[in-house]
């Protein structure tokens, strides 16, 4: 026990108070780095803007009718094949791989925005 305490006393570094490097708040903040891989998650506005851009650039869609609530088949007059095309275009824009089951459910702009916003890999 005494040996252990002696070894630990040797190994443990004494606590030092670091000298204050000026009192500028900026320098203190620059020492703090967030290494989380999740801090570049997209904001809701960014997702909405990009989704609307993708839908407006679809050739069969009238851009003036596109709102965040629009339904692809009911409001924009598209059919299920166009639905698949739009989901593919969204996959390319956000670099995602949406499985078939989920992609079949994405029927409206709202659902697309919610799905992409909640997807952890949206880029």
């Amino acid at each position: 026990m005494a040996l252990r305490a002696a070894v630990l006393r040797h190994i443990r570094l004494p606590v030092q108070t670091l000298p204050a490097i000026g009192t500028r708040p900026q320098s203190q903040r620059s020492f703090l780095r967030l290494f989380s891989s999740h801090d570049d998650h997209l904001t809701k506005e960014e997702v909405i803007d990009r989704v609307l851009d993708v839908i407006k650039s679809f050739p069969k869609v009238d851009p003036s009718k596109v709102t965040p609530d629009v339904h692809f088949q009911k409001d924009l007059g598209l059919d299920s094949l166009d639905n698949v095309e739009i989901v593919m275009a969204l996959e390319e824009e956000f670099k995602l791989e949406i499985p078939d089951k989920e992609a079949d459910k994405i029927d409206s702009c709202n659902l697309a925005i919610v799905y992409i916003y909640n997807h952890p890999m949206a880029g």
Partner: protein
Amino acid sequence: MAAAPTRIDVLQLYRSLMRVARQFCDYNIREYTKRRTIDAFRDNKILTNCSQLSAAFSDGKAQLEVAKRRALVYSLYAPKVKSIMDIKPS
């Protein structure tokens, strides 16, 4: 003759063909595959005859297999220089 393909099967085939199209390295072949699937599926949208539907569906599946093999082989010999159409304007 196999039973007529369901709506879900047709949409899945459409999606698989579009996904395969994305895997091609060559811009021209990629765009052709996309155009051809869109045109073929639109033309066949009006079919109602069961045997015609099955024939078109199995034709689509065969084309999907061909496209998958071609995409694999093309990727082995991918050109080093990207086509100008692939480069996004910065």
